[in-house]
């Protein structure tokens, strides 16, 4: 029997080793309809403008349709938070407050995971 092209366990180990800060934007039909693509763009823009060391990622829909666009964020020293009803203005607030000053935003938290 020939060996397979990739080693699943190796990939799994590597991907889960990835650390650092990230921001995920829910980019399914529902999210995009609510403006998630603009949110992602704005994050991209702010990230470049301020030279931030943070990974920007896309993900599917977490199910909270009533709160789209949804953004989940993990920043060192902060709990992992899901922000909802995010628009360009809130993006700037997330960067200014959550990412840079390590302060949670009022009125946009939909979920919070404290390790």
């Amino acid at each position, binding site marked *: 029997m020939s060996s397979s092209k990739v080693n699943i366990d190796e990939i799994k180990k590597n991907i889960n080793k990835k650390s650092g800060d990230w921001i995920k934007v829910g980019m399914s039909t529902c999210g995009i309809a609510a403006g998630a693509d603009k949110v992602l763009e704005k994050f991209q823009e702010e990230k470049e403008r301020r030279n931030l060391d943070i990974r920007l990622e896309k993900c599917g829909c977490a199910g909270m*349709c009533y709160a789209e666009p949804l953004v989940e964020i993990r920043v060192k020293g902060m709990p992992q938070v899901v922000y909802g009803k995010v628009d360009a203005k809130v993006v700037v607030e997330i960067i200014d407050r959550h990412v840079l000053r390590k302060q949670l935003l009022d009125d946009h938290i939909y979920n*919070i995971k404290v390790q």
Partner: protein
Amino acid sequence: MKIILIKDTGPTEKTKIIYDLFNALLRDAGMHADYQVVRAADIGIYGKGVVVKIFPGDIVYQNVQEDDVNNIIDTTLKQNKPIKDLRLDFQNKQIRIVLRNCGVIDPEKIDDYIGQDGYQGIKKVLQKFDPEKVIDEMKTSGLRGRGGGGFPTWMKWNFARGVEMDQKYIICNADEGDPGAYMDRSVLEGDPHSVLEGMMIAGYTVGASKGYLYIRAEYPLAIERCQKAIDQARVYGFLGENILGCGFNFDLDIRLGAGAFVCGEETALIASIEGKRGCPQPRPPYPSIKGLWGKPTVINNVETLANVPVILHKGGAWFSKIGSETSKGTKVFALTGKVQNSSLIEVPMGITLREIVFDIGGGVLDNKKIKAIQTGGPSGGVVPEDLFDTPVDYENLLKLGSIMGSGGMIVMDEDDCMIDISKFYLGFCVEESCGKCAPCRIGGTQLLNILTDISEGKATMSDLDRLTKISSAMQKASLCGLGQSAANPVLSTLKFFKKEYHGHIVEKTCQAGKCSGLFKYEIIQKKCKRCGLCQRNCPVGAIPGDKDKGYLIEQEKCIRCGRCFDVCKFEAVAR
């Protein structure tokens, strides 16, 4: 980091008051630098007054009043002791199996999926299980089809496995045509690899080397992401020949559905892939014996397939611990309608409708009175509020005259008219009927005519008998599930809301104000404060008058939109 998260979960609106109080008192105590006091938009708990969550420790307090704030600071924050009287034992009612990766991984990156135990199921199966063993695990799991019927998945696979044939097929049914349903779309968009892996496992088990994903063309993003997933899986050698070096060959292609509801029916779907008109065929033979191009074909729903990798990875016994006696695992529902949180939820089978609507959905919109919940879409029925404590599973819903269906769940309140609802669903089926068999084609139209008469106040009580007779003929004699179940919404509303039918037929009134011929809006002069809001809001100028003379609704002009009724702050508009 220490956090105090605050949210008034109703009915008062005290979030801000308690928030300010915490900030002020923490400052007085010289502790405000240690804590972040935050207002949540949603705290996952509903109808429990002001909810305060304290991290770390995950302490949850409910019905917090102004007076309690000092106590919380003294007892919990300073002395680290919980306050029993305020404590809320809170458990998240959702369990994520199907949606395990949705919103977690990047669906366009196969490595992300692998990072979450993706492709571990197929790996285990190919390396350690023979097909019988897979069937055994599936049997132990108790997984039943999520496409509506609830047929045991292992049995379907076993039928196809039992037939000796040079070629067999696996089809994923992603036609999702029910109005109000988008569960499958979310899975395909959020975690396409889980469906691919499920199809691979099915393929190995029954001895199929080819699969098709039948996706409705209206789902471009789902199609795009599935295609990417297939391409990536091919590059990784998970699709193609000699998969994982285990000698198993399997490949997948996408076929597009043109958006006809009936094409979601398995035999019609198969005809459509074969390039024929999407018309249902009589069964038996069932597709698992004689399906696509006459070959044994397993056809499973998206959600069914997304469960499969987890079952094989974690074991059938693990899966069967979740759910009710007859229905194992979870179900994804698209909860919509007059509910606070329109959302995609995944709950264990056996949860009650009340928990779904109130604990997860956050209750009814605008404090209206809840009337019923519709499950199963055009093939389903309504469950009235007094039966909301029924645990949700295949059998229970069937007993109530509804069905599990694919997972649409629509909450209805006092403004929803049951005749109007039946008309909507029946109209949908009449529109979507392929017309091949008479009971569905003719019966459906007849039913719709009667319902229309009822909604216009032109029916008589004897029409109700005709409704039941035609319905039962359609159930018995229609060729496919569409016609067999099209009358379900009618029968079910008739069963639980006969009074509404009577109201329309005898008193010629529509309490919900939906059947526009059967009610009117009028201004109750005694209650009217002459604010003029109704006049300004009427889109057709049907409310003449002024602040001195008062206002009147001109019935000839009124289009019964209900704007005046909604905007009047003094309840001076009657329906």
